[in-house]
């Protein structure tokens, strides 16, 4: 009997990409899709575009190509971020056009530094209402973003900074492996994914491989136990054109090619139509 329940539980956890996105996303949700250059959950982002969610409040340290696409597709109302460029290439033009011209819709920004975002995720995972750290010395961001506050250390009087914790409705990450039970392991540049998952109310993890048993390379590998994750989805290649350490490398050419697509509304719209007309194929 017990065994049977376990199987039912397992089946509920492992979903298709369409199911996982449809189950956990909703219009207006606060969504964090993390992966610091590495393991960016592109396939999941594309599925959000296909399902047409609106007015999302996206959170991500580096919006990268993935949020440029979601913003250009008209899914996003607000962005909390810390560095909005195409790494090593230049601008994210869909992001820029949303901020500079309100196209395809105005984008509210809640801008921070990397240190603040990283601390805010850790605070979210720790059940803290805010993150406290040292930063923003003489920086103008503090003057234009009301969610950056200073306080005095209660022990030394030293100036400290507080920013609200990040508590996403849904965090989505991509990882290398999950077990059939739904335990997840990731390695390489691990970014803020562990914090982002543990800070969220629900977490979707797309993975390269589902294996019978996880065999972590070390007792200190980054592991997210199944009970911290809402859905595991088998999506090989789901981080392309970013990369999955041990599986495939970063498609730097795709990032360079994105420049021309992102820069031109028409070319972007062609890209968008193409995306909407194709399903993710496993």
């Amino acid at each position, binding site marked *: 009997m017990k065994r049977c329940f376990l199987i039912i539980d397992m089946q509920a956890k492992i979903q298709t990409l369409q199911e996982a996105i449809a189950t956990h996303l909703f219009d207006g949700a606060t969504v964090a899709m993390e992966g610091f250059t590495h393991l960016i959950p592109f396939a999941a982002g594309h599925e959000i575009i296909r399902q047409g969610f609106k007015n999302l409040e996206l959170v991500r340290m580096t919006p990268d190509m993935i949020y440029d696409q979601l913003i250009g597709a008209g899914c996003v109302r607000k962005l909390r971020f810390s*560095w909005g460029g195409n790494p090593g290439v230049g601008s994210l033009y869909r992001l820029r056009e949303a*901020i500079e011209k309100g196209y395809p819709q105005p984008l509210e920004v809640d801008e921070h530094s990397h240190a603040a975002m*990283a*601390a805010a995720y850790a605070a979210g995972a720790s059940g803290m209402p805010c993150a406290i750290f040292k930063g923003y010395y003489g920086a103008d961001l503090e003057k234009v973003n009301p969610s950056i506050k200073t306080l005095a250390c209660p022990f030394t009087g030293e100036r400290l900074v507080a920013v609200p914790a990040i508590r996403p409705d849904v965090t989505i990450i991509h990882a290398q492996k999950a077990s059939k039970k739904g335990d997840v392991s990731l390695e390489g540049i691990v970014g803020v994914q562990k914090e982002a998952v543990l800070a969220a109310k629900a977490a979707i993890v797309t993975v390269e491989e589902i294996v019978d048993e996880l065999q972590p390379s070390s007792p200190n590998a980054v592991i997210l136990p199944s009970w911290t994750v809402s859905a595991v989805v088998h999506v090989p290649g789901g981080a392309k054109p970013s990369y999955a350490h041990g599986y495939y490398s970063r498609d*730097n050419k795709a990032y360079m090619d994105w420049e021309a697509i992102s820069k031109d509304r028409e070319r972007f719209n062609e890209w968008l139509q193409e995306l909407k007309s194709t399903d993710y194929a496993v």
Partner: protein
Amino acid sequence: MQYNSTELMTVVASRILKNSDVCFVGIGLPSAACNLARLTHAPDITLIYESGTIQTKPDVLPLSIGDGELCETALTTVSVPEMFSYWLQGGRITVGFLGGAQIDKFGNINTTVVGDYHKPKVRLPGGGGAPEIAAFCHTIYVIMKQSPRAFVEKVDFITSFGHGDGPGQRKAMGLNTSGPSKIITDLCIMETEEATGEFIVTSIHPGVARETIQENTGWKIRFAEEVAITDVPELEELEALRLLNEKTKMAHQG
């Protein structure tokens, strides 16, 4: 041997790095300069990228701050919260490199917006790690091409703090780090003048006229009493840099 201005800037920046330095490396010219130093005079220099890779020795230059190459050749890779809290905020990094769209004579840097923040003419990528790199690295070197649009009297937005509008401001905020101490441009090297907190020219690259430096600076530039002529890149340095760039180009074209 002929060289272009980007090569000159990269070589000059690499020379100021020491074998004992622990560098927080940014993408682009800083990454080229740091790795050139490692391949020439500073084989044991510690390079750290904000993606969490510590003591990395990439064979090709990364296009992004988190290319797999960085992790594969690193001594260890830590999470991003750990990188910013223990390693950067903890004061473990000796040198940080910054660049930007605008810099002023006190080394304040703008990488956020041109124009008003809420109605920007041009929205730039933003600060990323820069505000805290500027605060916590023991010293900061800046690499930027010189032009009157980039070297301005007053930046539109202070993304990362240099010396504010004069000396002593960093200390008053509780910062014990030196802040920006050198700017390497395609025309010259500028260094902070202690008494004023202002950047003044201390070395001029070969063949560059003082007038050219002034024409490409948006404030009234001053020159040190004794101005050096920058040593030209040596054959060995240029060869190492070109090989690195060639390998990088091949790798990125896939």
